[in-house]
């Protein structure tokens, strides 16, 4: 059964909600941090009191979800969220308070808001949605598992539409720690963002984009990964030559990463598009890639800032990303008409 992207929304460092078209040209940010452009929340979270009580990442999460639902217009049958590091600001705030106040008289709000399911629970409360609700927190597999769960829900007929949302916030602390751990070497850039999607069994008026399949591979050398990728393509009845665009998670155009090189070799006839220099990197960044893929397929245009050699037609895209060489994921995205 096919699963369609009925609606999507993104709060990222480049475009501003509710923008849905990709700009023809953009300037790449400077330095190695990219901060999300926050929208005017008043348009999405009407109650000023609720707005004031929410943390930054909660506001981003709810705003993106509301924007998505305004496109689909119905209650989702499930709400599934994904994050690598969760609500970092509140986590740090509570840790700091424990130390500074010597464990005395602590405000519980940062603790309760630090929980990984906060965004999913908030979305449920705002929407009064009592359906299936869960959260995946596994580095470069978080968003992929949310997608797979949603696809299973739809295929089992347990939900007609599923809201899938990823969220990641960057803080000074997380940037610094990851810098010390070596994440921002070789031109890699720290990012953040919230992406929300409505996955549906039926294509909508705007839902011409199909999420065909998702593959997660834990560990392994480039050669083993290549074999698993071949099996995945075969399972989906595809030859690598039928893929028009490889949306690669490599950090810069000069990346020497053997995994991304392997992917470029497999899809050597495809245009390679690179997005992380503009949007930055984070554990759930493949959600941003999926949002981009939906835009590119809908607009039938791969902007020049994403790729040097845009294809004539964009029927099929593969999103490949890995986190630290351990969590490899492939997302197969198609234009609806491909199989007639």
């Amino acid at each position, binding site marked *: 059964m096919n699963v369609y992207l009925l609606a999507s929304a993104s709060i990222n460092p480049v475009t501003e909600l509710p923008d849905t078209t990709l700009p023809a040209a953009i300037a790449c940010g400077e330095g190695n941090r990219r901060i999300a452009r926050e929208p005017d929340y008043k348009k999405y979270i009407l109650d000023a009191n609720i707005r004031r009580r929410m943390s930054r990442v909660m506001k981003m999460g709810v705003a993106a979800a509301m924007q998505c639902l305004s496109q689909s217009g119905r209650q989702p049958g499930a*709400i599934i969220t994904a994050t*690598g*590091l*969760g609500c970092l600001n509140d986590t*740090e705030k*509570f*840790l*700091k308070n*424990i*130390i500074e106040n*010597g*464990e*005395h008289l*602590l*405000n*519980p709000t940062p*603790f*309760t*808001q*630090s*929980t*990984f*399911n*906060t965004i*999913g*629970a*908030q979305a*449920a*409360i705002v*929407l*009064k*949605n*009592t*359906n*299936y*609700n*869960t*959260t*995946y*927190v*596994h*580095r470069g*597999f*978080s968003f992929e*598992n949310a997608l*797979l*769960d949603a696809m*299973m829900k739809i*295929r089992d007929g347990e939900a007609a539409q599923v809201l899938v949302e990823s969220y990641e916030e960057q803080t000074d*602390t997380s940037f*610094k*720690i990851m810098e*010390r*751990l070596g994440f921002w070497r070789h031109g890699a850039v720290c990012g953040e963002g919230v992406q929300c999607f409505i996955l549906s069994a039926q294509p909508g008026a705007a839902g011409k984009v199909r999420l065909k399949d998702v593959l*997660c591979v*834990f*560990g392994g050398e480039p050669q083993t990964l290549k074999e698993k990728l071949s099996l995945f393509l075969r399972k989906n009845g595809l030859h690598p030559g039928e893929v028009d665009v490889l949306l690669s998670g490599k950090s810069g155009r000069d990346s020497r990463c053997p995994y991304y090189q392997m992917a470029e070799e497999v899809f050597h006839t495809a245009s390679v598009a690179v997005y992380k220099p503009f949007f930055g990197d984070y554990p759930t960044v493949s959600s941003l890639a999926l949002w981009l893929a939906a835009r590119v397929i809908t607009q039938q245009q791969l902007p020049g800032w994403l790729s040097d050699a845009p294809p004539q037609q964009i029927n099929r895209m593969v999103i490949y990303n890995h986190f630290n060489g*351990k969590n490899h994921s492939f997302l197969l995205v198609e234009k609806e008409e491909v199989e007639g």
Partner: protein
Amino acid sequence: MEIVVSGVGMVSGIGFGTAEALQAIAGKKSGMGALTLFDSVYKDILPVSEVKASNSELAARLGLPAGKTFSRTALLGMLAAQQAATDARLPLRKGLRVGFVSGTTIGGMDRSENFYRSFGTHPHRGRLRDIAVHDCADSTEQIAAYIGATDYVTTVSTACSSGANAIMFGARLIKHGMADCVIAGGVDALCKFTLNGFASLKILDEAVCRPLDESRAGLNLGEGAGYVVLERKSGDAPPPYCRLAGYANVCEAFHQTASSPEGHGPFEAMRQALDAAGVAPEAVDYINFHGTGTPNNDLAEGNAVKRLFAKKIPFLSSTKAFTGHTLGAAGGIEAVLSALAVKHGLLYPNLNYSRPIAEHGLTPVTAFRQGAEINTVLSNSFGFGGNDSSLLFSKT
């Protein structure tokens, strides 16, 4: 497709492995005691249920090389997952695609706390080895690698229902052909972050917790891990403990940290789990309550049970007075206890009970029993954010 439990493993404040746990439960010996794992202003004030071993003792039990940094969460998880895998004879069965799905609320926070203390004084300070194990996925990946279950690896975090939701996801992965066998459950280590978090919410009892009792005044925290091995029924597997007959996950969408007093979320989770299995409420023999001992949870959960099981109230009890509330591990540990209850006809006593809760008047089991006629067991796990889940286990 019938999904069965072919192996179980747990570690908690009442011992290493299921045998020690059952022995403690039969002897009504609680795991609760004073906090020894880290310094805290709550040290002699709040009782906790610790796994009685230091990190280096845990590492030695696991045969891990000295000098490598593991979070306590990873160490506890390795012990329980290894027991579960061995119990299902997985190391001897070749050609299976084995996945590992773990629920946790805190991951390696016990190590991050150390890091953050130094880092707070200067951003160049703090041992990177301590922070590298911070995220939830680190513990999952360490455990998966240790037991060799890497064909599908992921982590679920829905507060105190994490373990139950991990089990549910594991079963669905098998049904969808994404793995042949999944080791699923949850793990959490005690740490300063959660202790202070629950203390700031004023829901920790300075006395031992009294689930389902009129005088209950809060929960006690615990730590541990519990995993079940899920697979399709087949001749290749050892005789199963039970079937995972049904499950449901709902969101109450009521409040970030509280249940509605009527227990709408718990009611729906239980009702939908029964529906999914095609089992009538009258057929349930025992309910392992979420039963944390907070005024709010035990009122809401009890009200929901009374309403759903109006015709016949099953045997019921909370095992949290033995293990403490182990947060992300609770759904896993209690799934293990539920599987054992079905297999051996066990009923677990609810410690520290004397008077029923006025609003619903439910009476829990207070004596350990074995050889009872237990065909169907419901296990509840409810979390912050209204993430309510129920698992239904039944005889094969």
